[in-house]
């Protein structure tokens, strides 16, 4: 009980400080990708989205009792992407929260969740946009979860410290998202002299330093929820393990 009070107090303080009224945050803004690139990334994104819906339907059909856990993974991404956290560069950005779901259900399921979060932010918050949704979804909802899943799979083979693996997976998935965003911007806006590479480092430079402390924060928060799950919902985790190829 005492632990619970301390925990809620920490959360309270955390949320008090973590949601100051900053204007923009991450993602490519509406209209900031030329038409051909906007279309291109939409086309890249759609097959993944369809696979995501299929994987989601499969899980809910085979194991309806896992719906609650899916909702938890979605909600986690919802909360984390609303938290714009100040960083050492004097600007702020937000975590993505897609890592947790990817570790639990595989990378595809989170494609759907991440897209929903992006749609919400594009429509209501003018954060990201509809034309750039394809590109933003590829970075946050496709590559992010895949990076998390890949790091996790690889990590559990080389170390028994599962928390460390979860932390690394979530943190690196966050970084991967922003590397992809920089790459997308660099492709669309190559530097006049240095070309795509120079442009990439320019954009990556903006995001990278801001993003590193946030990636660490994301990793820590993911481990917190992971700890809860591995204490209280062992059944679900067992069931997930028994499902192959999710």
């Amino acid at each position, binding site marked *: 009980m005492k*632990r619970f009070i301390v*925990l809620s107090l920490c*959360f309270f*303080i*955390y949320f008090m*400080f973590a*949601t*100051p*009224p*900053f*204007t*923009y945050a*991450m*993602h490519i*803004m*509406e*209209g*900031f990708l*030329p038409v051909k690139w906007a279309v291109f990334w939409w086309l890249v994104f759609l097959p993944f989205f369809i696979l995501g819906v299929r994987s989601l339907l499969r899980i809910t059909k085979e194991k309806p009792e896992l719906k*609650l*856990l899916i909702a938890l993974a979605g*909600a986690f991404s*919802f*909360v*984390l*992407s*609303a938290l*714009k*956290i*100040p*960083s*050492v*560069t*004097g*600007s*702020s*950005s937000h975590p993505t929260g897609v890592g947790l779901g990817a570790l639990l259900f595989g990378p595809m399921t989170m494609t759907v969740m991440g897209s929903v979060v992006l749609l*919400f932010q*594009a429509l*209501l918050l*003018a954060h990201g*946009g*509809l034309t750039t949704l394809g590109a933003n979804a590829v970075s946050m909802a496709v590559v992010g979860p895949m990076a998390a899943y890949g790091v996790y799979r690889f990590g559990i083979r080389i170390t028994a410290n599962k928390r460390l693996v979860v932390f690394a997976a979530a943190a690196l998935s966050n970084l991967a998202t922003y590397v992809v965003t920089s790459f997308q911007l660099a492709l669309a*806006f190559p*530097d006049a002299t240095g070309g795509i590479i120079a*442009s990439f480092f320019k*954009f990556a430079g*903006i995001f990278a330093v*801001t993003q590193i*402390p946030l990636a660490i*924060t994301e990793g*820590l*928060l993911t481990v917190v929820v992971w*700890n*809860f*799950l591995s204490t*209280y*919902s*062992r059944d*679900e985790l067992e069931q997930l393990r028994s499902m192959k190829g999710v």
Partner: protein
Amino acid sequence: MKRNGSLLLLAFIIAAAPLFVIRDSEFAGADGKAEEAVQTIAPQYKPWVQAIFEPPGGEVETLLFSVQAAIGAGIIGYIIGVYKGRSSRRDEVK
């Protein structure tokens, strides 16, 4: 489980530290800076669409962001509560 408190504390410190270390900044979003970078690399580029709906002013935007966080946090709290209740009930049976 025991470690959660210290993990949260650490996350809090990482998030709060820049506020004390960096004084003269408004912590604007990094994508705003990316916009500026686009303008320097390609000055002739004009965004070809505007957002359909833009929150009128910072207050409304803050409200919407808080709503987003609140919805998510509510769901997480509920689900963890369900799981916790279930596992403590099972402990009683045993």
